[in-house]
């Protein structure tokens, strides 16, 4: 496989994952705003922090408002992480690696691009927002399904998966980091409505309210949420889950290529770190510091994969 193709696959799936995460965050912001549990504008600020798009927003707008936040996150061409930008980028990368994709994956992605571009042609009114977000969710899920159902399990698939999980781990880590102060031991007390807002935001942002209830019951507490999102391997967006998938796919690549690359060592170290800790140790170390640490490791790992598999010259 060409190094360029590996790079294209990696980014195609990163962007696709990012589009999904962003639309989920918009959904969360909208929902929290509607139920008026907290200060809506504050909530949009934290949503945009979680999406990593707040700096660009502040450079373009003087104040935070729901309408402009939604527009920035869904449609803006000036925001490289808006849904429209990321789906366009995913498609551009898909065109680049067209020969590595099955016809079904390409058509699902091209269809996703055409449908979202149409839906995001104009500002999305509040009335249409649920339908538009639903469409983005369905269309991206279709690409994921076609990938899962039609692609060979070879190096092409491995690079697609690695891109997906690096992006996902990054997103979950950022959501946690924006809200880490809510999860500090001093806030372990349960029940106040202010806390509920934060917890609900966190769980909605990772589409996991149902999953959390199933695994931990209906009593929400900060320790369980942290455990769930950082360490719980049943949760497909937890840091531990994502890291173990990255490791698995790097291992497949390694045995396929008959070589052990430095990126494999980095991934192994990350996996071991998650396996060695329980959540109390994480709190002891400091949740914020811990997450910052994970984000740094993920960045290093991404860079090493680029080098090992000759993504660029």
């Amino acid at each position, binding site marked *: *496989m*060409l*190094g*360029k*193709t*590996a790079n294209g696959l990696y980014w195609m799936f990163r962007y696709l994952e990012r589009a999904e995460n962003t639309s989920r965050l918009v959904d969360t912001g909208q929902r929290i705003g509607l139920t008026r549990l907290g200060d809506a504008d504050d909530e949009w600020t934290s949503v945009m922090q979680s999406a990593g798009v707040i700096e660009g927003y502040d450079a373009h707008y003087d104040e935070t408002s729901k309408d402009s936040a939604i527009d920035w996150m869904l449609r803006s061409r000036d925001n490289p992480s808006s849904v429209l930008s990321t789906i*366009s980028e995913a498609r*551009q990368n898909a*065109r*680049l690696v*067209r*020969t590595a994709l099955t*016809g079904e994956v*390409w*058509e699902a992605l*091209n*269809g996703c691009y*055409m449908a979202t571009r149409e839906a995001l042609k104009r500002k999305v009114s509040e009335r249409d927002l649920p339908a538009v977000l639903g469409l983005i969710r369905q269309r991206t899920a279709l690409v994921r399904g076609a990938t899962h159902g039609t692609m060979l399990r070879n*190096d092409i698939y491995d690079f697609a998966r690695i891109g997906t999980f690096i992006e996902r781990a990054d997103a979950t880590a950022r959501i946690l980091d924006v809200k880490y102060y809510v999860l500090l031991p001093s806030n372990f007390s349960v029940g106040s409505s202010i806390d509920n807002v934060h917890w609900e935001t966190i769980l909605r942002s990772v589409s996991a309210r149902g999953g959390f209830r199933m695994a931990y019951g209906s009593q929400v507490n900060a320790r369980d949420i942290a455990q769930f999102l950082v360490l719980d391997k049943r949760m497909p967006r937890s840091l531990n889950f994502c890291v173990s998938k990255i490791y698995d796919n790097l291992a497949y690549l390694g045995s396929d*290529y008959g070589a052990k690359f430095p990126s494999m060592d980095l991934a192994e170290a990350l996996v071991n770190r998650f396996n060695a800790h329980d959540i109390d140790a994480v709190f002891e170390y400091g949740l914020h510091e811990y997450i910052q640490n994970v984000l740094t490791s993920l960045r290093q790992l991404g860079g090493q994969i680029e080098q090992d*598999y*000759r993504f660029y*010259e």
Partner: protein
Amino acid sequence: MSDTKIFDEMWGRNETLRDPYAGFQSWFEGEDLKRLRAKQREAEEVFRLTGITFNVYGRSEAEERLIPFDIIPRVISGREWQKLSKGIEQRVRAINAFLHDIYNRQEIIKAGRIPLEMITRNEAFLPHMMGMCPPGGIYTHIVGTDLVRTGDDQFYVLEDNARTPSGVSYMLENRETMLQMFPELFSKNRVQPVQNYPSDLRRSLAACAPPACDGPPTVAVLTPGIYNSAYFEHAFLADQMGVELVEGHDLRVVDGRVAMRTTRGYQPIDVLYRRIDDDFLDPLNFNPESALGVPGIMDVYRAGGITIANAPGTGIADDKAIYSYMPEIVEFYTGEKAILENVPTWRCSEPDSLAYVLDNLSELVVKEVHGSGGYGMLIGPTSSKKEIEAFRAKLTSRPSNYIAQPTLALSTVPIFTKAGLAPRHVDLRPYVLCSPEGVNITPGGLTRVALQKGSLVVNSSQGGGTKDTWVLED
């Protein structure tokens, strides 16, 4: 043109259904126009989703366009095709022999059949190729011979595209779309398949592997990148052949071979099907500004380290001035008269011809020698006085840049319009593969159709569309 009746490939000159269209007509009579209209829309949807689009240069991604597709097939009988394919094969063999001669002993010039200036003053002539014989002696591996028809048995070659002919993906996708939409048509008519083209192409390219190749040949397609207007086709062909699609920055010269950067390191390429122009191929040997090519690839090529398809310098065989010598060229190298006719051509570089052309501008088609895409040409009969006078000025200031031809009464075939079938002018581009194993011509090719009533310009850049082209099993 109005005094002679135009030949229609379905109805002839006098409204009598021609044999090849009998099967189609009996199907069409039983069809409902509303259903067909829905099918026409469906076809467009299929093309958009598959991404069979072309980019308009210098525009953003929003400007990907569809080439209009017409659902009515163009039908050619097996007998008609046999004669055409014989003529094409003869012509393509002659072109390869001509290229070999021009870049080696130049017998045809010594024999006085072609003036020396035609070669030495030609921009497409590549001195780097002198004394060089590509692997297998093949210069032009992939040819698209443009044909037009004016009567029952009257075909002309309009152009020999011997550099990098495009459009073959449309030939394949048009057929694929028709098979999906109208399966019943194909059970009723026995249509010769075109689907083997990608595997034929791969085999043909592999058969031209260079001396340095010591195993199963590695083939790759070289594209200028995703912003090129024909990118879809480049990706399509690489995908269908099961080979890598590379860009210049994926390649470099390693140990005397051209190699591509893969996830496992650099891997040598044996045969490169390049879809970039000569000028951009090698910044060390040609245009130093080119970022699309591979520095040093020409040196590897000359040393037998890689096969470039088509060979650099093939353009000398297909410009419009050389075209006028094609009957002589065919005869010189094959010893036979050309089976396919040339359109009579006046070379404006010759004073007598120029005088004739200037006197008859309103009846002639005048083209630039190196022009393509239907740009920079004059179609006398459909141009205004003002346009003709403007063109006259250009022509007199640089006569050698032009050739002129009579305006042909191009045949028509039916297309589907809101009101039912309506005749439109067409041409035909069959695709030809050459290798030491022989010449392979896919039955049919790409039919381009001028969608506007009366128009003779079929180029997609100027409002032309395409059709599925059938060659029947007789």
